[in-house]
C-alpha cells in the first residue's frame, strides 16, 4: 500500500470536498440583498387613491420618520396573507412619524382597487410605479417584498415574502427615535 500516494490524494481531495460540503449548506434559491445599510433610493410617485389629481408621495418628505414600503400586486397570492397585517399595523401608527406605503408592481390600478375592495380596504396609500423604476431601484426580485427605511434615510431591512404583525412592529420599534411621550 503506497501511503505517500494515498496521503497526497487525500490532501488534494479534502479542500475540494470541504468546498462542495459548504456549498450544500447554502440555499440556491436564497437571493442576496444588498440594500440594507444603503441610502434608500428616492421616489416621487403618484398616489393611486389620491383625492386630488396628481397627489404624490415623496420619500424626502419623511426624513426623520420611519417608512414601511411594501411592494405588492393583485395577482400575488402571498400578498393576500400579509394584507391584514399591514393594514392593522398601519392603523396602529396612524398620526405618528411612521408611514406605510404600498407600491403597485406590474399591475393596473383597476385590478388593485378591486383587490383592495375584496380584501376589506387598506389603511395606507398605494403608489403607482410606471415602468417598475422604483421596484428596480430597490432591487426587487418579486412580490411581496417590504423595505423598512429608518429616520436616517437608509434601508434598515428588506423582508422577502409575507410580513406578520409581529415583524412589522419589531422593526418599526427598532427604528423609531424615542420621544419624550409614550409610544
Amino acid at each position, binding site marked *: 500500500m503506497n501511503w505517500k500516494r494515498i496521503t497526497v490524494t487525500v490532501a*488534494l481531495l479534502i479542500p*475540494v470536498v470541504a468546498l462542495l460540503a459548504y456549498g450544500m449548506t447554502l440555499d440556491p434559491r436564497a437571493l442576496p440583498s*444588498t440594500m440594507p445599510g444603503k441610502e434608500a433610493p428616492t421616489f416621487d410617485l403618484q398616489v393611486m387613491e389620491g383625492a386630488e389629481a396628481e397627489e404624490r408621495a415623496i420619500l424626502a418628505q419623511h426624513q426623520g420618520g420611519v417608512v414601511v414600503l411594501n411592494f405588492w400586486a393583485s395577482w400575488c397570492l402571498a400578498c393576500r396573507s400579509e394584507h391584514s397585517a399591514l393594514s392593522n399595523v398601519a392603523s396602529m401608527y396612524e398620526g405618528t412619524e411612521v408611514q406605510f406605503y404600498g407600491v403597485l408592481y*406590474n399591475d393596473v390600478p383597476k385590478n388593485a382597487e378591486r383587490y383592495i375592495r375584496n380584501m376589506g380596504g387598506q389603511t395606507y396609500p398605494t403608489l403607482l410605479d410606471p415602468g*417598475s*423604476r422604483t421596484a*428596480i431601484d430597490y*432591487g*426587487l426580485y418579486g412580490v411581496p417584498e417590504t423595505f423598512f427605511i429608518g429616520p436616517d434615510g437608509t434601508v434598515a431591512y428588506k423582508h422577502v415574502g409575507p410580513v406578520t404583525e409581529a415583524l412589522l412592529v419589531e422593526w418599526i420599534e427598532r427604528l423609531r427615535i424615542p420621544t419624550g411621550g409614550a409610544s
Partner: protein
Amino acid sequence: MIARRFFILLFAAALAVLAAPRSIAAQQPAADPATEATVKRLASELRCPVCQGVSIEDSPTELANEMKSVIRGQLQEGKTPEQVKAYFVERYGEWILLQPKASGFNLIVYVLPLIMLLVGAGFVYRTVKRWSAVDPSELPLATAGGAGGGTEE
C-alpha cells in the same frame, strides 16, 4: 362547423392581443442601432431576477423588459456600459452578473476547473506511464504454450 368556430376564436384572440395596452417598456422608442446593440449585449450579461437561470435578454418576464428599458435609458443619458452594470450590481449584488467577476472568492470558479484538469491529466499520465513500463515477460499470456500463432511440430 367546429373548425370554423375555432378559427373565429383564434382570430378574436389575436385581435385582443394586438389591441392590449403595451407596457411602458414596449412603448419606449428604440434607440439607434449602436445603442440597441449595447443594450442587447448588456442584457445578455445580466441575470433575470425572476427567471434566474436566464439573462434578461432571453427572459420573457415583464421585469426583464423593464430592466432592458432602464439599460436603454441610462445609455441614452450618456452612462457607460460599466456604469450601467454597476447600477444593477449595487441593487442586486454581484449575483445579477451572469459571469461572476474574477476576483476574491469568485476566483475559485475560474481556477478550480483548471487545477482539476491538470491534476486529472497528471494522474492519467502517471498511470499510462506505469502501464507502459510493465515488463512484457511478466504478462501471463507470454508464458510458453500460451495462445499464439505457432504450430506444433
